[in-house]
């Protein structure tokens, strides 16, 4: 046990014996100014297991792993590594102790090669000169050991996301860790890349390494998890083996509510067709020959994994993607027709027609974080008569209208002059939704509306969708959140690698039927 980190990679029986507790956290607490992020949490990792850390955003998952990885220091509690109590001072120290983390944001320098990235900050030298031959040899060894098909001399910027992730893993792996942490690693991977990652994790697991895997996606848990620990509001809720983890149970543990309390019942009252997409093809074939339609008074799902093209389809209807072929009809007017060279798409024009697209990435595309709620909500509608005359803004009107909307959405705190960046994720999402309320909208396209929001905001957004639909608007819900598709929509389309795989009616929607189309290739294999 003197040099545990080195011992693990050798095929010593001790390291491979699953069940040895590598790391245990006892009564771990972390106090941030104003919030208790972790409240006496117990957690442990055994050799050769994938321990999933599950919970909503803000549940404390990230804080926990940041403490283990040496980013933060705990405010209370103890950490035992190989049975000995330790203090982790820094990320570098954590590495030395054998704890490596693969964070969501890649820590790679795009212009450097794979090899240079692997050793960044830890280069081998001979005197002041880089020992390039030794570097190359060690890089090769690390990659071979992991079986990654990467060339050490390739520049990282030309690699795919999955390959970059391999580099990231190799980098974490190079220091011969006993514990590896993965923080939502599939967030931006396609389904094939995800498959590859999962088989890698299996491989690392077989080396006797303990793995902490963070996710808020339920379908991933069953594929790779051994045990699951659920956190909620910084408190340890339960730790269960994967066999006991049903969707129902996980949602209940995660949110503290039963499913029926989260998803409202939406009356279905289909009227005239608002959006008709025929044989749409976008640039690079992210959407390939897809036809869908949405009527007033119904909620239609567009399900699929990240990279399946579902988001591109929604964006194309708003005029944000280049289209190569097909036809789009909105509210009875042809707004795009490749054959007849009609193109009336574009945010301004589609807004005026009554289509509203709510982007998935509220920080990047949805909101102006440094402006207040009032300015954000009014932004798309300043040209309307209620907000301005020909020359000047009507700021008193603006205040009144936005205040009403904030009240309706239950904004917390109810202060429309507060800058967006000072609100929680869920309340920011409410503001994003609120932007659409000022206008007369006939069809809403929600792109992943509940990513990164807490359960309270989630419920508020679902109820909002219900109200919109029951008031006669059409809703297209683009989502990779399975429960959302299962419990909220009236019918759903499922996309898979740019193609439409299925259209399922409410009665046909089940976990099996949807997942079957999510992962069709895997089922055939």
């Amino acid at each position, binding site marked *: 046990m003197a040099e545990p980190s080195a011992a693990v990679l050798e095929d010593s029986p001790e390291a491979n014996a699953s069940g040895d507790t590598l790391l245990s956290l006892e009564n771990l607490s972390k106090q941030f100014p*104003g919030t208790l992020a972790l409240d006496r949490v117990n957690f442990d990792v055994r050799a050769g297991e994938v321990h999933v850390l599950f919970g909503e955003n803000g549940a404390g998952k990230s804080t926990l792993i940041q403490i283990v990885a040496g980013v933060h220091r705990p405010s209370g509690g103890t950490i035992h590594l190989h049975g000995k109590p330790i203090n982790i001072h820094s990320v570098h120290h954590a590495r030395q102790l054998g704890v490596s983390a693969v964070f969501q944001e890649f820590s790679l320098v795009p212009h450097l090669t794979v090899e240079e990235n692997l050793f960044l900050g830890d280069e081998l030298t001979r005197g002041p000169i880089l020992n390039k031959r030794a570097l190359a040899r060690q890089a090769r060894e690390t990659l071979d050991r992991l079986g990654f098909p990467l060339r050490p001399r390739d520049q990282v910027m030309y690699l795919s996301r999955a390959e970059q992730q391999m580099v990231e893993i190799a980098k974490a792996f190079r220091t011969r860790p006993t514990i590896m942490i993965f923080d939502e690693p599939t967030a931006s991977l396609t389904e094939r890349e995800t498959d590859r990652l999962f088989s890698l994790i299996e491989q690392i697991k077989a080396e006797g390494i303990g793995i902490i895997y963070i996710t808020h996606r339920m379908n991933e848990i069953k594929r790779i998890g051994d045990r699951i620990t659920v956190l909620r509001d910084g408190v340890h809720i339960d730790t269960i083996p994967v066999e006991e983890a049903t969707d129902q149970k996980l949602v209940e543990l995660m949110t503290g509510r039963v499913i029926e309390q989260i998803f409202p019942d939406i009356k279905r009252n289909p009227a005239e067709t608002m959006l008709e997409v025929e044989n749409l093809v976008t640039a690079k074939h992210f959407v390939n020959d897809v036809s869908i339609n949405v009527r007033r008074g119904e909620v239609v799902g567009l399900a699929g994994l990240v990279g399946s093209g579902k988001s591109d389809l929604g964006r194309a209807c*708003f005029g944000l993607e280049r289209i190569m072929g097909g036809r789009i009809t909105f509210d009875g007017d042809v707004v795009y027709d490749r054959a007849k060279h009609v193109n009336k798409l574009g*945010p301004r024009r589609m807004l005026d027609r009554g289509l509203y697209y709510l*982007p998935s990435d509220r920080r*990047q595309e*949805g909101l102006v974080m440094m402006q207040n709620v009032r300015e954000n909500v009014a932004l*798309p509608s300043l040209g309307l008569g209620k907000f301005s005359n020909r020359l*000047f*803004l009507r*700021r008193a009107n603006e205040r009144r209208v936005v205040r009403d909307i904030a009240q309706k959405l239950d904004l917390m705190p109810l202060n429309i002059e507060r800058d967006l960046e000072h609100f929680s994720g869920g309340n920011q999402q409410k503001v994003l939704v609120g932007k659409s309320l000022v206008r007369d909208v006939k069809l809403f396209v929600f792109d992943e509306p509940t990513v990164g929001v807490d359960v309270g905001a989630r419920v508020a957004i679902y109820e909002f969708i219900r109200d919109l639909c029951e008031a006669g608007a059409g809703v297209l819900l683009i989502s990779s959140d399975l429960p959302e598709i299962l419990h909220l929509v009236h019918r759903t389309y499922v996309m898979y690698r740019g193609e439409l795989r299925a259209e399922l009616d409410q009665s046909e929607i089940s976990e099996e039927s949807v997942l079957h189309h999510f992962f069709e290739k895997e089922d055939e294999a």
Partner: protein
Amino acid sequence: MADTAQRHPTALERAEYFATLIFVRAGVLPWFLLVAIIVFAITTDNFFSERNLMQVARQSTYLIMVSMGQMVVLLTAGLDLSVGVMFALVSVITSMTMVGVWDGGAATTGAILIGCLAGFGAGTGIGMVNGIGVAVFRVPPFMMTLAMSSIVFGIALMITGGTPIYGMPDNFANVLGYGKGIGVPIPIWITIGFIILMYVFLNWTRMGRYLYALGGNLKASQLSGISTRFYLFMAYVVTAGITTIGAIMLTARLESGEGNIGKEYPLLSIAACVIGGVSLFGGTGRLPNVVLGAIFIILVQNGMNLLRISSYMQLVVIGILLILAVIADNYRQKLLLMLRD
């Protein structure tokens, strides 16, 4: 006893908290101004004389105009390094046109008006080229306006051959340069007018709001149906427009057209904005603070003149102040994060 022991630190803490709050809310400028005023009040004897204060106000007008212009592009996360050569070209074009038209036998007032219009056209023309480059061809604002500085400076020198242009009607200088209304110099009245105009523009019009949104999040603005290209273009035109007005006033003051004036304005206007709390990354900044920032810079220059500090040393001091302002702002951002709730 225990009571007082507890009360004392809370009072101190409260004072400290209050000072921090002013710093976080209003930035470094109030403190800069306070220090400058105290230092000059102690070290000079005529700093507070009415004559000197009026002098500071009058000298500030040109920088205030440019800084307000600079602020407009800074809000969109751009910048304009060509405000300096705008002064040069506007000065040259205004004076040459005025002299030419007047010598051709036109009435004095007509000649002055035509001259000013020509200068205004030339100045905003530079802004349009900047705007097209940045908004349509997506040239980075830094490159676009730096290159334009070279181009326009070259043109201004080619036109004049490097020599000043004299012979403008006396009325031009007498009114726009040295004239007074109710005891206050005309340039100050004009500048006050434009401060009000810009305030209304930035806070009470759609375009003003869009400028903030554009710099805050370009993509979100686009998805909100705003024609980002058009407003980006217009930002550079507005910047040039208001800078040009300042340039015409300075031409009147100098009573000549000069191809090499205005070199200090790119730096000083950016400094005034940054000291006034405008973010170089766009989206934030308040007009009154920018105006105060410009006044502060002129105030410091004035005070140093009174103290007979050499103009070389003054360059050093202004540079140091600018860096200090940025460091203080970084610190303020950090405090802001800590004091979030």
